């Protein structure tokens, strides 16, 4: 065990604030591509240190966080629009319908079309809560990598591995 693990580092609030800026930017445009180099530049943190610093600050690796935001946005579009599932897949940042559908099912446990049917049937109980807070509360809680989640669920079968979308 190294010193950093045995004694939690006192984190510089100014650095955390800069990491938050990178997180905010992903929140604002989850459909865009967010390579670590871009996130690092926004935070003023080197590419080599960014992913770890982000994970330590927010408890989730940056690209997995991005995935939760994309799925969240996809869920909202499925619920609130009549756009086709293909249109939604591309609108939230995937470049393949197959990858979107598979990842979506892995994260939410439902296919996009199943989720659309169940969500549209729900009574809108949150009409007095600003929309952004409702969707944040319903954000998928992705504690493990999607590839890992898939591995657990398909253990014993011959499922092929898919790389987590970044």
């Amino acid at each position, binding site marked *: 065990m190294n010193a950093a693990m045995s004694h939690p580092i006192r984190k510089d*609030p100014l650095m*955390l*604030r800069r990491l938050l800026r990178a997180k905010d930017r992903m929140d*604002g445009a989850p459909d865009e591509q967010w390579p670590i180099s871009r996130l690092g530049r926004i935070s003023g943190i080197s590419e080599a240190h960014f992913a770890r610093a982000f994970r330590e*600050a927010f408890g989730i690796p940056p690209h997995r966080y991005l995935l939760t935001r994309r799925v969240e946005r996809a869920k909202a579009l499925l619920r609130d629009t009549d756009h086709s599932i293909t249109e939604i897949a591309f609108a939230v940042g995937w470049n393949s319908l197959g990858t979107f559908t598979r990842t979506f099912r892995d994260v939410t446990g439902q296919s996009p079309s199943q989720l659309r049917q169940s969500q549209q049937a729900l009574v809108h109980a949150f009409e007095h809560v*600003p929309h*952004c807070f409702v969707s944040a509360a319903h954000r998928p809680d992705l504690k493990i990598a999607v590839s890992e989640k898939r591995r657990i669920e398909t253990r014993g079968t011959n499922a092929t591995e898919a790389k987590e979308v970044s």
Partner: protein
Amino acid sequence: MTEGVQVAGLYVRDQDEALEFYVGKLGFEVHTDARNGDYRWLTVQYPGQSGFQLGLFKPQVPIVDEATSQTLNEVVAKGAMPPLVLVVEDCRKTYEQMRARGVEFTQEPTERYGNIDAGFRDPSGNGWKMLQAGHAT
């Protein structure tokens, strides 16, 4: 009105910086700025909203211990404090004005369910929604 919420406070990392932001950039006015040694009671008001003060407080010794003060500054910087909502008459216009003054917006004005909202943060990390209710075209 004689009863109701009079002061609710935010934690800010630096009160001078917060004052510059809330007064200089957002247009709040100082209500009370009182010092006692290292302690500073600082509240601001939105113009025209005389019944409510927003406190800009520093988590500091001896109100909290040193480690707690550090933790609170970290929590704010991570954007983990509760939501704040500023209601405005014209979200897009106010957005342009604030942005020109250097406010860090996290979300451009977006229309949903008949409202328009935008998002911004203060220098410490407190997140605000700016909401224009029921005027969407």
